[in-house]
């Protein structure tokens, strides 16, 4: 591929067709697996290049025969057909040779696979939980856990504003990992199957409800590495990216200490002095966690996601409403928000739902009511 001429050719050819896209990212043209930052990803890349080279050679050899024949053995050139139609010898030869090539491929593949599956002697364990449609991270034994949501604004997705550099590959809170340490991941999911993939790390593993899967990584350079969910998990499967921020062990330790402090502070009960307007304003922001299913206007998706507007839960007793929001509904995309949102945020979003989106109950829920149910 001649890299320099193609973007120009493309730009000429498409011209107006690309009106909506940001032209800034048009230079990438990735043709192969991205540059690896872990030993395993490097091994996979080498293996991939080796296997592809072997396949390419086989392809070229076999089809040079075919295309030579297509060129030379034509009726229009007066070529007379030979009538041979079997040979046990050649059949045996072209059974054995491919078999030996396969054995040659299997040896390095087996070696790499054994290393990939060795999750022992980890320095740090991070539990990753897939939700519809976000990721939860928990640093095991460190009292640090948080959720990581898509940070790309809806206006960019719906083409109302131009798209940013990391469109769809940016999150509100990246998972931070230390470099030069073996990090073990434990993966599970709360609703349906998800899959956690960061190409530059060479890590992809399914997060399955009821299972705890294991894998590991060892990042050699600090940096930001992006990936996506790779198992169809429903409506917003395409909108739950992964961002890994790799820091030096010292920076990581500092970050972890800071998180511990902040999360301990968050766990303290909040005073109830908030008035209804403050709760409603905060609730409107928190409601962004609900729009993926229930919609910006609370209308839901008929037959799949229930509406907030006119809902029996929202217009019924507060206790029932709190129960659904905090504990979720097993078997559906409604997962327990008590794990994700603070007392204040839950109080705010319930107050918001009960007094907007077409509902007018007039009541106010305070953080203490939420805290009492934890």
């Amino acid at each position: 591929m001649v890299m320099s001429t193609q973007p120009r050719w493309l730009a000429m050819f498409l011209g107006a067709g690309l009106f909506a896209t940001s032209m800034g990212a048009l230079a990438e043209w990735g043709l192969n697996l991205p540059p690896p930052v872990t030993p395993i990803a490097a091994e996979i890349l080498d293996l991939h290049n080796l296997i592809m080279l072997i396949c390419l050679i086989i392809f070229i050899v076999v089809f040079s025969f075919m295309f030579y024949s297509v060129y030379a053995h034509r009726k229009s050139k007066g070529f007379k057909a030979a009538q041979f139609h079997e040979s046990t010898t050649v059949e045996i030869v072209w059974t054995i040779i491919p078999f030996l090539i396969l054995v040659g491929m299997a040896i390095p593949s087996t070696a790499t696979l054994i290393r990939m599956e060795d999750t022992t002697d980890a320095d740090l364990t991070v539990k990753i939980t897939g939700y519809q449609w976000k990721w939860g991270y928990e640093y095991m034994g460190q009292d640090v856990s948080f959720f990581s949501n898509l940070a790309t604004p809806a206006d960019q997705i719906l083409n109302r504003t131009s798209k940013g550099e990391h469109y769809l590959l940016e999150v509100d809170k990246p998972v931070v990992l230390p470099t030069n340490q073996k990090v073990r991941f434990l993966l599970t999911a709360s609703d349906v199957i998800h899959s956690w993939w960061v190409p530059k790390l060479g890590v992809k593993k399914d997060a399955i409800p009821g299972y705890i899967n294991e894998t590991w990584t060892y990042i050699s350079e600090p940096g930001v590495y992006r990936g996506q969910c790779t198992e169809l998990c429903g409506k917003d499967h395409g909108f739950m990216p992964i961002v890994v921020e790799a820091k030096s062990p010292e920076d990581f330790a500092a970050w972890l200490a800071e998180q511990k402090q902040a999360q301990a502070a968050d766990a303290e009960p909040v005073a109830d002095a908030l008035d209804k307007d403050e709760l409603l304003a905060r609730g409107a922001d928190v409601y962004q966690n609900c729009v993926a299913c229930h919609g910006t206007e609370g209308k839901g998706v008929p037959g799949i996601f229930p509406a907030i507007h006119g809902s029996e839960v929202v217009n019924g007793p507060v206790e029932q409403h709190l129960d659904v929001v905090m504990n979720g509904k097993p078997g559906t995309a409604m997962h327990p928000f008590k794990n994700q949102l603070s007392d204040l945020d839950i109080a705010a979003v319930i107050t918001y739902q009960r007094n907007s989106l077409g509902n007018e109950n007039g009541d106010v829920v305070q953080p203490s009511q939420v805290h009492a149910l934890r």
Partner: protein
Amino acid sequence: MATADAAHQEHHHPSGLMRWVFTTNHKDIGTLYLVFALTMFFIGGAMAMIIRAELFVPGLQVVNPHLFNQMTTMHALVMVFGAIMPGFVGFANWMVPMMIGAPDMALPRLNNWSFWILPFAFTLLLSGLFTAGGGPAAGWTLYAPLSTQGGMSVDMTIFSVHMLGMSSVLGAINIIVTIFNMRAPEMSLMRMPLFVWTWLITAFLLVAVMPVLAGAVTMLLTDRHFGTAFFDPAGGGDPVLFQHIFWFFGHPEVYIMILPAFGIISEIIPTFSRKPLFGYSSMVLATSAIAFLSFIVWAHHMFTVGMPLTGELFFMYSTMLIAVPTGVKVFNWVSTMWRGSMSFETPMLFAVAVVFLFTLGGLSGLMLAITPADFQYHDTYFVVAHFHYVLFSGSAMAMMGGAYYWLPKWTGHMYDEKLGQLHFWLTAIFFNITFFPQHFLGLAGMPRRIPDYALQFTEFNVISSIGAFGLGLSQILFVYVVFKCVRGGEKATDEVWEEPRGLEWTLPSPPPYHTFETPPQNIPSRT
């Protein structure tokens, strides 16, 4: 005899629509299957156009994410169960009796029923799109627990899959019984054309695995409505169990969709090389080996679910082994061409393209078998590119080649050679523009089944969409060529091509309604 035949036909055959509803004739039913498959090919194709329109540029423009998921799910279900499988059954109905010297299929009423289940099954499946919550959106694999979440269209899909399974199993039983019992006395198994052999093996695969799929979706149904928890961990069930059962069906299904294609091109290549098929016995053996291996490789679709290391190694090695018999087939086709006297009418163009492009897809399949590398490829556009190379440029293009090859026999008219070749070149070129760049997209990190993507994937998606629109439009030309050929054209001779082998070419073009009422004789050896 001739007058008795004519009287026989007049008495028993209603005309007009009722002829097609009540027909038990293998040629009529073959035509019904082929027309049905072509219709589904366009319905599934229209869904592909919606998918590619949405993916043309980043951002959401055409559909919302939920509808996008319905389109990918339905596109696959319609193409797999509506276009490719019935298409091959259509070829089997037309050709198997004529190739083995039988007057008809062994079980003609069952044959009628096998076909007429299909329109009802697809009405049920497609009408799911118009229910509350829309059509099924969990992918054609219907993975639990995502599929337990869907609306009532998932139940309609489940019942539709039951009906499709019934249709396929009955059709397969009919083909097996026909081949075992209806051959002309001289037609020993090792004198059968390779197309008949590949269909015999395919039919056994169908009987073996369609009930497994029916079992999987029935468990899904009871999980959804009757309080069981086969796939629900909260009730002690196992979501991965669904994948094991599904792919135990799903991998043989892959060969169900490709073996008859191998059969078709094994008929076409010798004819236009003017040379017998090279290695007939090894072709039969290789086909059987592929069918056997297809039962022990299923978990290569699931390397990322967290299997034990030994499990991963077993499925990696067994999958790699498939390359051996598949390689044998490719080498045999190339050797058949070698030192032949080739000409390149439309069927041959398609056959050569199938050998070339299917092998490309086969080699990317070998890459996917390498477990460590599969962790990077799995569920990306690399996989999408791979299976379209085997399913479109393998199965679908083999059927197009087969249609051009036998249309003169079926209709008694030659098709328009110029337009046929134009259709071939448009299809082959646009196919590659559509799917070749998807290899790069997958390697660069684009997951499959996403309605919108990051900016670095833009260029190849634009190219792929343009190719897809071209590929879709080119197929309208195919319909025109077929239609034109059915309506008229240069009269075809009985042999149609130059000294082709096979009993079908000893019959008139078009063949009379009933053929081989007395078994043919002097059937030549193939080995």
